[in-house]
Every structure is written in C-alpha cells, then in structure tokens.
C-alpha cells in the first residue's frame, strides 16, 4: 500500500506544481483541468491513507428550516437586520444552525415563491426598502411588519441597530453566546457598558440605547413615514415586499428634506 501512496504523493506533487505553473501563466483552462485531476488524486490518497472511505458525516436532523430560523431571529430583533446579526441571534437564543452564507439566496427564493403564489404563506422574508424604494443591500425584514418598519432612511440603520440591541438585552440568554453578543453590541452604544469588563447589565444597555434613540427618533420617524407613504402609493404587491428595480423607481419628488438626494437618472 505504501508504494501506491508514494506514487500518489509524487503524482500529487507534480499536479500541484503543474497547477501553480498554469496559474502563473494565467492559463485558466489548463489549471482547471489539472486541478480536477489533483482532486481525484487527493481523494484517492485520503481514502488509501485512512484505510477506507469514511462514511459521509451525518447532518444533524434539521428540525427548523433556515427560513424559519431567520423568521425567529427577525421576530426577536423587531427591526431590519443583516444576515450576520440574524445568525448571531439565532445562535445565541435558539440554538440555531444557520450560517450567513445560507442567507444570501433567501430573498430571491422568497420572491420567486411569492410571485408563483402570491400571499400563499403566512409570512415572507422580505427586503428593506431604500429611499429610492429599491431593495437595500444586505438587509432582511419580515413581510408582516408595517411598511414604516421596513423602509430605511438615513438614520434608520442606527435606529434599527439600537432597537435590535434593546431586543437582545431584553431577552434571557441561555449561555455565554448571548452574553458575547450583548457585549459586542453594547460597546458601540455610549454609556452602555460603564467601562467594566464582562457581561454588561442589560438594564443599563436598554437605558443607554433608549437615550440615544431619543436623539434620532423624531427625524427618523418622519423620514420613514414619508418613505412608507411613497411605497404604498407607487409600488405593487411584489415590489412592496421585495423592492423596486432601481431604474424604474427614480423619485420624481425630491421634496423630502434631509432624506432624498435629488439624483436623477441620466
């Protein structure tokens, strides 16, 4: 067997060198070809060295779908959030099994499902809407929320962050993961940690977040109301949930002071 291993190792070395030479010569086709051969050789080596083909690792039984876990996370947060935060919340409070990468295609799948059978599900994982009513990059919302909660004005990312921090601080955590999440959020809110190391006092975090919220609330509420009004007036069912395509939503009205950027398409 070791002869065969030696031979495979020689072959693997040759192939590796070949791949890297091809890469350096920017010969993509050749590199791909060699890489495929390399993978085969490496698999054979793995198989041979470990004596037998290892059984494919059994996935733990999935009780809750990715979609449901995201829903759970968003419900807890109560505001538009990025996949990274949703995953952290799911992990901290629901023993979640999702990874950020699994969330990338989610919105598209939801839109497809909605288009084929509108309102066929009790909820959809939907987009947040920008000031041009297009989908905001990297943010998820729930279709069951009022439009005001699903739009983002200039202050909304901060307001949503503070809202999420209050939600996380209000939740009883099971273990250190919840503490770590709260520490990470709290250190970015003035006065939330009191400079102490270790898990911050949730009451203090909530108080500090509320204090900063009071600074932004009025303008943000006004901006959101205006955006929500436009979204309701201009968008159809699908676009209201998943955002309008960028070009079709050029705002004619640039009246909303402090929010709309007055950019016309050229």
């Amino acid at each position, binding site marked *: 067997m070791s002869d065969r291993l030696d031979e495979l190792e020689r072959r693997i070395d040759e192939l590796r060198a070949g791949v890297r030479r091809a890469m*350096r010569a920017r010969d993509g086709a050749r590199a791909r070809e060699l890489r495929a051969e390399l993978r085969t050789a490496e698999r054979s080596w793995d198989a041979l060295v470990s004596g037998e083909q290892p059984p494919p690792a059994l996935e733990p039984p999935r009780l809750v779908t990715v979609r449901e876990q995201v829903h759970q996370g968003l419900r807890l947060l109560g505001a538009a959030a990025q996949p990274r935060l949703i995953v952290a919340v799911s992990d901290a409070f629901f023993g979640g099994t999702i990874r950020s990468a699994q969330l990338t295609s989610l919105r598209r799948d939801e839109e497809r499902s909605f288009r084929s059978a509108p309102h066929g599900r009790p909820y959809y994982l939907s987009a947040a809407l920008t000031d041009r009513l297009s989908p905001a990059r990297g943010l998820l919302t729930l279709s069951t929320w009022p439009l005001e909660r699903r739009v983002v004005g200039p202050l909304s990312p901060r307001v949503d962050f503070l809202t999420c921090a209050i939600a996380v601080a209000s939740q009883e955590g099971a273990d250190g993961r919840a503490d770590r999440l709260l520490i990470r959020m709290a250190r970015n809110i003035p006065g939330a940690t009191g400079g102490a190391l270790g898990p911050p006092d949730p009451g203090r975090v909530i108080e500090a977040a509320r204090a900063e919220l009071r600074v932004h609330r009025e303008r943000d509420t006004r901006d959101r109301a205006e955006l929500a009004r436009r979204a309701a007036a201009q968008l159809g069912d699908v676009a209201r949930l998943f955002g309008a395509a960028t070009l079709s939503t050029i705002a004619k009205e640039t009246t909303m002071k402090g929010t709309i950027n007055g950019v016309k398409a050229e």
Partner: protein
Amino acid sequence: MNTLDALRGTTPPRPHDARAIAALAANPGCARRALLDGAGIDKDAVARHLGFPAPFGQSPFAITRGNLFESLVKADGCAELLRMLRELLGLPVAEVAYHDVENVGAHLRHTHTRALIDRAAREGQDAGTLYDHPLLSLEIAGHTAYLEPDVVAFQLGGRFHIVEIKSFAVVDGQADPAAVAAAARQAAVYVLALRALLEELGHDPLKVSHEVVLVCPENFANRPVASLVDVRRQLAVLRRQLARMTTLDRLLAGLPDDVTFDLRPGEDGRPTRPVAELSDALRGATARYAPDCLSTCDMCFFCRDEARQEGSSDLLGRQVRDELGGVASVAEALGLADGERDPAEGQEEIARLLRNAERLRRECLT
C-alpha cells in the same frame, strides 16, 4: 509622431485603481513606467508575455480576512465605525446618517456620489455623515480612473474625512510601518480624488481633511481601532507625479518613431506580438531599476534582467549606487578599483577610494 494611444495600440486600456496610482509615486524617475502607466497599458500582461511574470500574489486567506474585517467594521449601520469616530474625533451623537451609495446600482454610483457630496458640501450639518461605497474619479494622463474607497468618507465639523479600513494588526500601539505607509499612500489618492470632485463642483477642496482615519484590528482580536494619519507628504508626492504624467509628451518625443508597446491581442485575447520585438520597443524607454521595484512594479523582473545584462550597479541597491558616486556600471567600478581604467573627470576621488579598498581587501584576504 508618437501618442499614448498609439503606444498602447490595439490592447484595451487597463483602468487604474488607487493602489496602482499610489505606486506611481514609488519610482517617479522611471520613464518606462511613466509611459506604460500613462498609456494605460496592462503591465502585468506585458511582463507575462515577455516571460517575466511579476512575483506578486495575494493569499486567499488574506483576502478573506480583509473582507471579513471590513464587513465587521461596517456592520449594523457602521456601529463600530461610529463608536471609533465618536471616541477619536468627538463625533456628536446625532451624527449617524448613513448612505449606502451602492444601493443605486453600479452604473449610477459615480453620479450619485457626486450628488451626495455636492449636497453635503452645500448644506453642511444635516446632509449626512457616512457614505458607504462611494465611487470617485481621477484624471490620469487623459484617462479617467474610477476609484472605490472600500471606505467611507464622512463629514465632521464641516470637513470630509477618508476612512481607510485595513486588516493588518496594530499590536500595543504599533503596526508594520511599511503597511501603514502603503495605506497612507492609497488614502492620499482618495483625498486627492475627493478634493478634485469638490473643486469641480465649485466648493473649497480643502474641505477634505489631509488627515485620514485608518481603521485596523487591535492586537490579536478582531476588534477595530481607529487612528488619524496625516497624508500631506503623500499628497505632495502624488501631485508631483501626476503633474509629470501630464508632461509625458517630452518622454514620448524621446522615443523612436512609430514605436508601440502593443501586445496585439488575437481573437482569444492572447498576445500575438513577437516577444523580441516587444522587448526591443520597451528598451527604447529608459527604466530606472532599483531593488525596491521588486515589491511595487509588475515589470520588475524584466528590468532586473536588463540591468543584469547591462552590468548595472543599480542591481545592488541604492546604497551601493550612492557610495559609488556616479559610477554606473560594475565593470567600470571594478576597472577603477583594479587600476585598469583611468578615472574620467570628476571620478578621481571615487577611483582613489576604490583602489584603496581593493588594496585593503587583497591584503586582508591573502
């Protein structure tokens, strides 16, 4: 009559990015590089075709780490960045307005950036604080280069600041000086582009601060820390170099007629130009090789090979070159040392030193 476009020929121009523009300042005296860059020629492709591929590459681990760190700094409406700006520059709590320029779609980013910056410069206070993924532009020798500060410009006390996010660590208050210097050069390009934009829009370009906010991971954790870096010197070097780029005519005039650095890409995009012909053309434009080129220029191995063939003392580094005081070739320096060559005018002193050095080495080694 040579023109930059003729120099590039049928090869499509390669757009400059901030790193490339910053590197222009690395070896300002090199005519070959100035011409290649001025004409928008893909130096990497040229070097590969000549059989001297550049020794650069970035590890996927470094790329992943860089992306992860950047998204961490920008997560949740730039929550980490706001904390640092509040701590470092006393940004008022009310200043949190965030605009993701990329929301408008790629084709509108530049126009949108212009409009946002214009409004911010006009209206001051209420206009907004953070601009994520802006797209700036800069004229490089008649070509427009588009620049993407991975970074955010923000307004504070009426001034714009460039924020540069880098994933090299600051350990106990110290970072790799070379990495900091490279970041400063790159940020200076953004400062320059943003100033140019303001000027074009009729605003005071000095509304862009010469201090950039450099964000790096602190110690061995992922936690970001910000510091202010003064890039005035980098700006000065860059401006000078860009000014030289606009006077490429003089360099062009010095080239033989009808010379071109065209790769003549075939239908599959592969270069068809005979290698010998291309190297001859390139040799027509004088290079100023220095070992530093090995970390900054795609053409480095080609120029080093040329320096070897010419027996140039540039190979040994600037320090040796300086010590030899104007004796450019290895053979000439050794000829003076061995006393087989008479010093030219002005070489008497270095010749005497070299002869003495040779005598001492012989005495000690035999």
